[in-house]
């Protein structure tokens, strides 16, 4: 199925209001859906026999600071049976207190587990329903979100070489 036809299937299943935007670039389409419906949309994409997106390539994030909503969560899908690919996005706002939340898709694609952990720690997004929301790549002592646009590449004083005193304690 080509990219337009997949988008039409989505629209016919959920209605046109679920699509917040669509980008077609270099024969690849990326559709932004309403954040609250992301789990239903993904379930439909996985279980519908003509779409059958059974492989999740990655879950990633993009920081669109200073635009609001700030974070994009990107899901790249592939279908083994039909050999087509598609990209779904959802926007997450930055909250005043706490972190922006979005549903986790781990129950549909277990491979999302580590992708979501990494996106959560790098951007400061919470994936509700994730079975194991610990930090993955960054040291546990840090409380920074490095991939945000307002975080400098060289790091801040919140990302120190772990001092020797800490090492002696074990």
């Amino acid at each position, binding site marked *: 199925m080509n990219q337009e036809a997949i988008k039409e299937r989505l629209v016919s299943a959920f209605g046109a209001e679920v699509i917040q935007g669509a980008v077609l670039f270099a024969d*690849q389409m990326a559709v932004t859906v309403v954040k609250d419906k992301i789990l239903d949309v993904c379930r439909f994409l996985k279980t519908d026999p003509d779409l059958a997106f059974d492989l999740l390539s*990655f879950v*990633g994030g993009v920081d669109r600071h200073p635009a609001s909503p700030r974070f994009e969560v990107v899901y*790249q899908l592939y279908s083994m049976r039909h050999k087509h690919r598609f990209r779904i996005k959802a926007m997450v706002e930055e909250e005043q207190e706490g972190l922006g939340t979005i549903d986790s898709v781990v129950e549909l694609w*277990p*491979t999302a587990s*580590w992708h979501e952990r990494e996106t959560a720690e*790098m951007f400061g997004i919470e994936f509700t329903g994730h079975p194991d929301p610990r930090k993955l*790549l960054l040291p546990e002592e840090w409380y920074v979100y*490095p991939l945000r646009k307002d975080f400098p590449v060289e790091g801040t004083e919140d990302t120190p070489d772990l001092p020797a005193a800490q090492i002696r304690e074990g």
Partner: protein
Amino acid sequence: MRDAATADERRVETLEINVGPHHPSTHGVFRAILELDGEIVLNVTPYLGYLHRGYEKTCEAKTYHNVIPLAERCDYMGASSNSFAFCVAAEKLMDVEVPPRAQTIRIMMAELSRIFSHLFWLGTHAHDVGAMTPLFYCLREREDIMNLFELTAGGRLMPNYIRIGGVIADLEEGFVERLRSFTDAFDGHVDEYETLLTKNAIYMDRTSGIGILTKEDAIALGASGPMARASGIAWDIRKSEPYSGYENYDFDIAVEYGCDVYSRYLVRMKEMRESNRILLQAIGRLEEGPIRATKPGFVFPPQEEIYTRSESLIHHFMLVVEGVQPPKGGEVYQYIESPRGELGCYLVSDGGPKPYRLKWRAPAFVNLQTLAKMSQGAFLSDFIAILSSVDIVLAEVDR
């Protein structure tokens, strides 16, 4: 004295041991906490991040061309496949078409990298299982390949040869002859490794039936590359979504149905032979022509023209000083079949000379998620064999 009732109360505790991050068999700085019942592994909790080098953040601060050497260091076992993946993604973003000679040369580098990576995997995997000899044989072959890499652009491990639009320089004289002598001898070398391991009773005992990953689990956990092909999924991106001219080459997909460590070994051995086949065909397909596309503002002009024609000099200057200007709002996800699986690069552009967002879909990161599922119920020594069969490269896992 204890009375009879409490003497019968026993407490069974599981043992937690820590493997890594400094460990001879973890192939880098990988850490796992194993929960053992005696010698049987009940649970594996991997701890990653010991080689997190901030790759994606650093790429946002570099121009598109400067990302290439950074990308090569991501998967250091088959370095050219990383720059290949990035360049293919950047070319899609900037709509650059690569000329045929450059496509053939890139395929040569990609397949040499595949053999390069699988040889090292074979040596270290056999070493983990207990056979020390194959390591020395495999590293001897790798030296031949490193000589070939050195002929291309000077680097033994990271040749840094592939550029957006093609390759940096034409093949040296003598490269094709040396490559031909390598491919002629390589099948014999693979036969040598097979005599050491394939029908070896100890090796088969240690790897057959170990680390089962069923087909459904492989798809659910996102496994790709040899991990998926050893579970019966005949998926090879070079065949299903060909890039860079792979549709013109004749080769088979290496598939096995055993789903265990032994099957992954067989898949990788077969892949080495198929890569050799592709190399031989690539030597025959090499035709005269430019080695880089012509697209001023995106691709560097040829080196000879920079010294003789003033427009080329100006284009080169502007490219180095200002960088490329890809379309604003463009985003692509382009992927190749690396030695480990689907290696993808998701590029988002804001019209500026630096990538707005570069997301590296690393196959080893995703394949490593299968470790916990595969190791449940295995012995501790089997855990080491299973870990080595996943073929991880920590720089790719942690980025």
